[in-house]
């Protein structure tokens, strides 16, 4: 393991410890942090697509798909360790089918097709009342963890722990993936796809692999959201929820696997505090934050932190 990888591992573990500490000190933040980590996992998938220069305005589809899969399965199978793979599997399978179709398109058409399909799913959730209870949504029963029924307090902690473990796992995986030939091919696609094809690398298959992975990660995020809120509604699939994921990716910075999580914490905390401060203007505040990041810090929060560390004379801890 290189020195840099080791440093990042220590940083990730330290971040996990800080999250647990904050959740213990400020109990009501535990919910917000769990949701933020869930979204961060989904945004890791967006990061993969961004590497290829593609932006999906429809990944809330996979978040919602897995969340609803969990909601439907939970009454018969209230086990977190089974619901998570189930959600990931459902999202991954649908991601494969949809992916075969959308990887033929680039840029705006890619974004729009994803948007369209997520909106189709949204209206299915909203309109087929008999099955999905429409905008009322579905409530989830209490979930067991490794076969153990927990009280609401313990269940909250267990979900947070599962979320952190998944975030660490997926974060490490994406880091390795991006450095692998498949990951390098993604960056090459962004620079010049034709050259990639000349080298005999099928661009569509490279993008498809990233797309399915992103669907799986969005699915895991979706199940965690469903287990945390214990209530799923069609709003999870609305296009603004997809925009939120892209927002978090840019806010955090697409340069590192830490970006999505930094972005997600920044987003959820700003949203929570802004909504408490001015009820009808939290979206406006977030919009202004996003504009500021794009105009003045295109590297996102991660890029800002990095350049701040770089400027230090000794350069300690610069990853």
């Amino acid at each position: 393991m290189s020195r840099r990888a080791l440093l990042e591992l220590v940083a990730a573990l330290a971040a996990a410890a800080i999250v647990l500490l904050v959740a213990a000190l400020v109990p009501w933040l535990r919910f917000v942090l769990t949701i933020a980590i869930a979204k961060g996992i989904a945004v890791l998938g967006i990061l993969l697509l961004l590497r290829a220069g593609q932006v999906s305005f429809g990944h809330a589809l996979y978040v919602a798909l897995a969340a609803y899969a969990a909601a439907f399965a939970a009454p018969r199978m209230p086990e977190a360790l089974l619901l998570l793979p189930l959600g990931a599997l459902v999202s991954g399978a649908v991601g494969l089918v949809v992916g075969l179709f959308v990887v033929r398109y680039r840029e705006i058409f890619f974004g729009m097709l994803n948007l369209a399909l997520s909106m189709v799913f949204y209206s299915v959730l909203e309109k087929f009342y008999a099955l999905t209870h429409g905008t009322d949504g579905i409530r989830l029963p209490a979930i067991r963890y490794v076969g153990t029924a927990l009280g609401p307090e313990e269940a909250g902690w267990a979900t947070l722990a599962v979320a952190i473990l998944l975030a660490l796992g997926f974060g490490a995986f994406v880091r390795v993936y991006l450095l692998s030939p498949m990951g390098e091919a993604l960056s090459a696609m962004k620079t010049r796809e034709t050259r990639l094809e000349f080298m005999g690398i099928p661009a569509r298959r490279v993008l498809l692999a990233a797309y399915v992975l992103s669907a799986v990660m969005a699915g895991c995020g979706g199940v965690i959201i469903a287990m945390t809120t214990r209530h799923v509604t069609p709003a999870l699939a609305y296009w603004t929820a997809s925009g939120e994921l892209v927002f978090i990716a840019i806010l955090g910075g697409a340069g590192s696997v830490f970006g999505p999580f930094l972005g997600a914490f920044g987003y959820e905390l700003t949203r929570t505090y802004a909504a408490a401060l001015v009820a009808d203007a939290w979206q406006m505040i977030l919009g202004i934050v996003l504009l500021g990041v794009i105009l003045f810090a295109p590297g996102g929060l991660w890029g800002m932190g990095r350049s701040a560390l770089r400027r230090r004379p000794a350069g300690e801890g610069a990853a």
Partner: protein
Amino acid sequence: MPGWIADNALLIGLAVLDGLSYAAAVFMVAVGLNLIFGVLRVLNIAHGSLYAIGGYSAAALGLFVVSRGLPGWLVFPTLLAASVLVGLVLGPPIERLLRRTEKEEPVLQLLVTFALFMILEDLQKLLFGVQPVVFDAPLKMLGTVDIPFGQDVIPFTAYQLFVLPGIALVTLAGLAWFLRRTLYGRMIVAVTTDREAARAMGIDAAKVTLLTFTAGAALAALGGALASPTASLVPGVGAQTIVLSFAVVATAGLGQIEGAAVTSLLIGLGRSFAVYFEPELEVVVPYLIMVAVLLVRPQGLFGVPETRRI
């Protein structure tokens, strides 16, 4: 099949009429979106908010005119004035911001318009509140027309029958004439086709972009203003409108005005038929049409293959 048509004549008639007036409003938004994409190469997510704000402003000004007891016909120029106002007030600053990020990646530019969408959504809530706004004075003033349909008669509002589609047609014809026959119009087409070449020919591309963006914003606002008497205004209408006009633009292919008109009609009629016959599919139909079209013609119904950058 003929039997089915005879049995459902009334519903079909209503669906066609509703679809026409709906398509007219959608066209106004989609055509502006298309023009703006042409000169700036960015799909403006905030465009739907301009539609919503245009609708709210028209309703607010119209209600003011009515409450003051001014002559009733004044509500029509008010609709127009409100949209021009929205275009002039919001268009230039947004254009300025987008021009500032012109050099950035397309993803970031798209995100700039998403940020603007979030800001405008809340601005609209702060300015006009979250309660539904109803403004049906123009509808009531023009009354209804009885349209014979088979053995039945459909009473349909004259506003939705004549004013909405009429203004959309005038816009379509006016834009086609403007873009092809006038100097300014041809400058817009030149900048759309090749910005660099246009500048080399001495065209002030920055000015053309500003003009086009402001006009596109005013068209979206006009679409909202014209539709405001037909449905009550609620928060979220901007978000709904933008995804629908995305569907229209993607189905039509980018850079096609007549194409946008035909596609608006197709999607407007498709949606209203769904409303009357399969209400569950109402929201889905536009996207089903879009996906079906893109499967067969990836560049859109009327798009030229070159526009697809792969």
